[in-house]
């Protein structure tokens, strides 16, 4: 593995001083509602700048393990930006600067010694528009195991491909045409292929950036079922513009507005008894 990734613009400023204290601090009054799972991802005071423009203002959040956490909010509210901080995809944008602290299983992912390449193998991502590689279905899923060298034999690789496709609920549809191009599938199938591709690397966290926004209602329903299934094994963070979707699939919901994390809590509570008026306005459709 090449490890010469330049350490990007992470500012280990004042937030590092009080790190341990921060980690133990309860985040919101609602945090107590989902103590069933331990926090997998913890963020403290994360700010993001794109050039001169500040996109995120001091976001702190605890994302519990093996559950679905939804980020909702109007366009441009910073929810996707924050999502991309969790696997350091923002590193690929030259003008983007991230400050603050994000930990996965207690380890700082913006640590200088941490290789973002290895991080992304643990934190998979599914994008808004299905983006299968212009390769065969098999090669799409085998891509991750190949680059990470996680399988040693062809047989093992075949197994990983099959398991991943099964977990993504795509196996029965494509098992007879694994050698055909992934780009030839329908939009919903392509998105499930992308999920299978992400699973094949063996991640712990899967980030989904509006995974259904380019799909029709039936394909969306299938992906939502799949997300529900996957939450048994993975920690899932999903950005969505559809409040119904957030209500259907997630256990926790975070509402972002103008770069601030306004409110975070159990989904039920956010949708039935939001404590912030902005959240209420948003979920009742008064803006956004």
């Amino acid at each position, binding site marked *: *593995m*090449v490890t010469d*990734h330049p350490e990007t613009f992470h500012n280990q400023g004042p937030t590092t001083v009080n790190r341990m204290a921060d980690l133990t601090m309860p985040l919101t009054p609602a945090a107590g509602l989902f103590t069933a799972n331990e926090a997998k991802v913890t963020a403290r005071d994360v700010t993001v700048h794109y050039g001169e423009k500040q996109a995120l203002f001091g976001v702190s959040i605890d994302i519990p393990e093996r559950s679905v956490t939804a980020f909702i909010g109007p366009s441009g509210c910073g929810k996707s930006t924050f999502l991309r901080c969790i*696997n350091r*995809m923002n590193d*690929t944008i*030259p003008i983007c600067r991230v400050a603050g602290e994000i930990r996965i299983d207690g380890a700082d992912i913006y640590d200088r010694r941490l290789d973002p*390449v*290895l*991080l*992304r*193998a*643990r934190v*998979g*991502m599914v*994008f808004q*528009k299905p*983006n*299968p*590689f*212009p*390769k065969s279905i098999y090669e799409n899923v085998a*891509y*991750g195991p*190949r*680059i*990470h060298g996680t399988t040693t034999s062809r047989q093992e690789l075949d197994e990983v491909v099959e398991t991943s496709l099964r977990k993504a609920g795509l196996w029965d549809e494509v098992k007879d045409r694994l050698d055909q*191009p992934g*780009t030839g599938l329908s939009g919903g199938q392509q998105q499930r292929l*992308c999920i299978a*591709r*992400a699973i094949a*690397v063996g991640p712990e966290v899967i980030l989904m950036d509006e995974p259904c926004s380019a799909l029709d209602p039936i394909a969306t329903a299938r992906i939502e079922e799949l997300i529900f299934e996957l939450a048994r094994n993975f920690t899932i963070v999903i950005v969505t513009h559809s409040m119904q979707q957030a209500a259907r699939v997630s256990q926790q919901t975070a509402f972002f507005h103008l770069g601030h994390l306004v409110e975070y809590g159990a989904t039920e509570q956010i949708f039935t008894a939001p404590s912030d008026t902005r959240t209420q306005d948003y979920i009742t459709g008064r803006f956004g």
Partner: protein
Amino acid sequence: MIALYFVLMAIVAVAAFTVGAARGRRLQAAGLRLHSLPAYHGLFLAALCTVPMMVAIAAWAPLAPRYVESSAIAALPEAARPTTGLERDARLREIVLSAEGRLTGPAAANVEAAGRAYLSAQTTSKTVLIIAGILAALAAFSWGLPRVSADFRARNRFETFTLVVLIACSAVAVLTTLGIVSSVLFETLRFFQRYPWWDFLFGLQWSPQTAIRADQVGASGSFGAVPLFVGTSLIMVIAMLVAGPIGLFSAIYMSEYATPRFRSLAKPLLEVLAGIPTVVFGFFAALTVAPFIRRAGEALGLSVASESALAAGLVMGVMIIPFVSSLSDDVINAVPQSLRDGSYAMGSTKAETIKRVILPAALPGIVSAFMLAISRAVGETMIVVMAAGLAGNLTFNPLEAVTTVTVQIKTLLTGDQEFDSAKTLSAFALGFVLFFFTLTLNVIALRIVRKYREQYD
């Protein structure tokens, strides 16, 4: 007079447009709902009136000289009329010169009379053209104007007309290609009547000197083209060994690693290379690179010809770097960012992403960039003339002098020519085979692309 005709055509077009559009507007003002906008009625009328004028001049162009010439000949007295084609041409030249007053020496009375007849016939023909053109335009106009009505589908008509114009333009390109190919083909067939084609295609000896007298040295030329094609391929391979990796790697650097600032500076600079005239590359090759290679070779104990395939190939490689790099850079940039994101998000490094995702997706474009570079290398003449020599050696040794197909064509067709000797005609045969050669390369490349293409949309 002819310029006047075109001015007239422009005036007719503008007038027809104005009248048509005005009429359309008047209908609109009268409260009618037009099928097409008034401007389309104008455009329709303009096209309708100019097309007959164009047809008229197209018909006139080949007919007029015939009429003018025959009336000039007819003005000669019976006895002075030419009998053979050659004689007719000579007499006509005399008449034209006399008519234009450029004849040196006194003109015979009958030639002078014929000259006057020539001039008057010319005036008549041009007058006829202009009158015919105006009449045709008027006829078209008077036919078209009453058609401008609310229901008339002027837009559809005009769009059909546009379509026909577009088809005609592409037909010009296709027909030109066909014309060039067939003209070369016929000269090639003439060559093969004088020289057996298998000796040409498979002969190993190239010495195109044909003797003027029968007892001269080298009395029989030998036209085996194999050394030329070997020389061409040798230089092409050397050039691509230089341009391929350098061009492709610089394209990868430019599109994937370089900062936008550096790229915006470096890319135009690299493209300047493509703008250097080949003759400049040629003397660079002949005066700098070739002697350097020779000295370097001597230092290593190799015998290097002062004009070597290596020198020409290296310089040609440098010349075609921009073709490879600039085009590859464009196609790599065209690979969607979503594919890069997808790959990075799975924990692949930049190098892995480039190698496994970007390059395969950009492959068709990269192959066509290479093909363009190869065509350029095969067709290049100047560098090879100056740096690789003229000797038709059959060799694969890059340190020896070789010659290429294009260089030989240039050598065969410069200077005074006799167009019925095998020596001159062989140039056409070489050109035809070269054309076939590049065509084959293109077909192979297309096949490769189709087989390994990874389509991303």
